[in-house]
């Protein structure tokens, strides 16, 4: 049993478990949408005159920030107590071959260490993928009014047309980077 749990979980186990977060958070009095926390952190940490950050972050967002802290702790528990048996994630052969062609050299861990490491950060690909990429995640999520959890899961589950538009955008941007920018960058 322990070994089975340590193996990577298949989509048909993980997907329904993720979907249950939506009713769980609604029952608790919140709503599934992780990127709201970025706004709450700005509102809490920066004394500002900007309207967008002038609200009572504690009453509006403390529950969600606690949820985000839980994500960090749960991930840490999983990586320590249930470490995966293989150092390399079993992506498809086709993906591995394509990534080698565009310049990915290492396949250990959760992300290629040549980019996603403190050494990688000071290279051009590392700077673009970490710093510029992170900026777009924050800017885009707030502009779109939600991220993958808020639109692709919560929003689609509530049959929201705006969320469908946002998800089409998520994929348009992702495909653009995957097919045109990463080959030039790596």
């Amino acid at each position, binding site marked *: 049993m322990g070994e089975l749990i340590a193996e990577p979980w298949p989509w048909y186990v993980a997907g329904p478990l*993720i979907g249950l977060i939506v009713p769980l958070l609604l029952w*608790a009095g919140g709503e599934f949408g992780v990127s709201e926390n970025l706004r709450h952190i700005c509102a809490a940490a920066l004394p500002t005159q900007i309207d967008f950050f002038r609200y009572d972050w504690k009453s509006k967002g403390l529950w969600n920030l606690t*949820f985000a802290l839980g994500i960090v702790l749960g991930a840490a528990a999983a990586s320590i107590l249930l470490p995966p048996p293989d150092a390399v994630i079993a992506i498809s052969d086709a993906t591995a071959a394509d990534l080698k062609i565009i310049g990915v050299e290492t396949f250990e861990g*959760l992300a*290629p260490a040549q980019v996603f490491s403190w050494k990688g950060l000071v290279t051009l690909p590392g700077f673009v993928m970490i710093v510029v990429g992170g900026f777009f995640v924050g800017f885009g999520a707030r502009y779109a009014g939600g991220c993958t959890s808020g639109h692709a899961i919560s929003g689609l589950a509530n049959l929201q047309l705006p969320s469908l538009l*946002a998800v089409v955008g998520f994929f348009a941007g992702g495909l653009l*980077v*995957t097919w045109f920018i990463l080959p030039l960058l790596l």
Partner: protein
Amino acid sequence: MTRTETTGRSASPARPRALTGAGLGVYLAIGMYFGIVATKAEMVSWFRIQEMFRFQAFHMYGIIASAVAVAMISVALIKMRQVRTVRGDIIVVPPKELGRRGYRYWIGGTLFGLGWALTGACPGPIFALIGNGETVYGVVLLSALLGTYVYGVLRPQLPH
């Protein structure tokens, strides 16, 4: 006695969620549950996101599709049965406003997608990656905070 006085708990005016909802320990537990599932399903991996954007495996699509299906059925049941929160308020799922031609959704969504593919992570997984000891994702988080702040500054000028 008038009927309006009998409407009871559901008529309570909208209060901030934190005051009407569960204790913080409940949110911490649900967050931990998410962090464990996201880690064990490898949703937090840049490699898995690449596999998805290259349409070379069903894994991520299966996760998203089955998560949406379970969430959709849950939300439908919650609305139909008028389920209440832990504190007794009827659950209301607020609709999202389309605004002018949905500009904010497709422009903001596309910008978010650029960041999603570059970093290999959306906000939930960013927190999970930090928990996994991928410390450089702390920089991704700081940049995302900067992006959020710049959005807040530019917001009045942007089409929504």
